């Protein structure tokens, strides 16, 4: 194919790097059970960002734009003020997914523990995906709702346990 037609009808064969990203995405609950074609559609709208050690990914209080998936390295979730480390996340883990639904302020800061690469999946791109590929967009939104629902149930269970323990102590 000459350059002109090749550019219009380019065949998008996946590279090794893209295969690695697809493998990471398969392990994320939000994207589990998606076909390879659907995962490729998600991969195309991810934003790859590189952070240096101790570089801030986002600050507590910033309007939320979307979630990050750690491709390489480690990230600390830090509560401010006081800089208390709430969690340490590694390759294949994700954070900030609630910001896919609204732009309410981030509940904590995210800081790179070492040199890391994160894949950003953001709200505007999700809404664009819903326009272009409603089936896939709805699948992701339903999974997101399920994840939030499960987290809520866990919170309720933990609260009940705490109340039970307090009641027994008193």
């Amino acid at each position: 194919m000459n350059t002109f037609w090749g550019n219009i009808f380019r065949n998008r064969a996946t590279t090794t790097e893209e295969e690695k990203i697809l493998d990471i995405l398969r392990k994320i609950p939000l994207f589990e059970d998606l076909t390879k074609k659907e995962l490729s559609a998600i991969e195309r709208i991810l934003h790859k960002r590189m952070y240096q050690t101790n570089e801030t990914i986002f600050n507590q209080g910033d309007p939320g734009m979307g979630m990050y998936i750690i491709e390489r390295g480690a990230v600390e979730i830090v509560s401010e003020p006081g800089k208390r480390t709430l969690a340490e996340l590694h390759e294949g883990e994700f954070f900030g997914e609630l910001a896919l639904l609204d732009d309410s302020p981030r509940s904590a800061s995210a800081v790179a523990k070492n040199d890391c690469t994160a894949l950003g999946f953001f709200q505007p791109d999700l809404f664009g995906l819903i326009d272009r590929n409603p089936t896939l967009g709805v699948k992701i939104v339903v999974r997101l709702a399920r994840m939030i629902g499960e987290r809520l149930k866990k919170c309720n269970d933990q609260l009940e346990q705490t109340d039970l323990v307090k009641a027994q102590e008193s």
Partner: protein
Amino acid sequence: MPENHRFRRTIMWIAIVAIAAALLIYAMGEVVRLLIIAALLAYILDPVTTFLESKGLSRTWATVVVFIGIVSALALGLLLMYPVVTREIQSLQTTDSASRTTEIFSKLETSIKERLGFLGLENMNLNEKAQELKGKVGEKLIVFFVTDFVSLVAHLVAIPFMIFFLLKDGREMKKLLISRVPNRYFEFSMNLIYRMDRHLGNYLRGQFLDAFSFGLLAAIALMVLQVKYAVFLGAFAGLANLIPYVGPIAGGLLSAVVTVLDTGDLAKVGYVVLAFALVKLADDAIIQPLTVAKSVEMHPLLVLLVIIIGGQAFGILGMLLSVPVVGFTKIILEEGITAYRKYRFA
């Protein structure tokens, strides 16, 4: 107050970059003009392409289908309009038309002398002046077609080419642009770019729909009144409606002038003016609220000044784009400052 100082410095840098960009755009003139036209048309066609994508077509094929649709519609339009256009051109060239024009100008001159003689208007020689103007217009048309024909053809090829790739790869281009932003300003910039994109897209598509509806209503009104060249005048009025204040007046004025030249019937001119007033009322009351997503909320005097400056800098394209450009600069600054305050750029 280090934060205030940093904020002021940031605003200063943004202003410097914006002025430099404006000067560069002005210097590059023609290329930028083509790109702007292509980008505007790509914005308007984007929802159609996205709709086709949602039905299962790849972005490339969706873009190809949209292009085939537009080319087919244009070809069909040309085929239908060709006999009408040739007939109208022939009628313009016949001696019947020329002698009727002479008669109309003579009647007009007599009428003006009778009613406004106190102004001392004696030998106006309207007929000679009209012939002189016709000659000058003819000369300009010949010069345009002979010397500017090559650039016209280049534009007719370049613009669809640009539209195709902007439509097909616009998303990737935006992603590439965002990827260059430093991490510190990444989410803030992405937020701003997507909001701007949404506002601009909605505004342009709304304006296009509004212009199309206005042009259609104007053409129908002129056809009902049996005004010659109703379709062309309607199309012109629709395009002119894109320019606030100036456009609707220009559209109505042209139709009134054509009616005078064609029939000499001042009563009919009155009906044409009334028809335009009614179409404008329908546009303001019904069409605009439905189609134009958000007004730019600028003072009318500022709008007029902006149109004049845009016209002087970039001609007709400047007049068309000056109001949305200034309006969106205003939105960008407002949203940018609000968003900037929410983010902590530590």
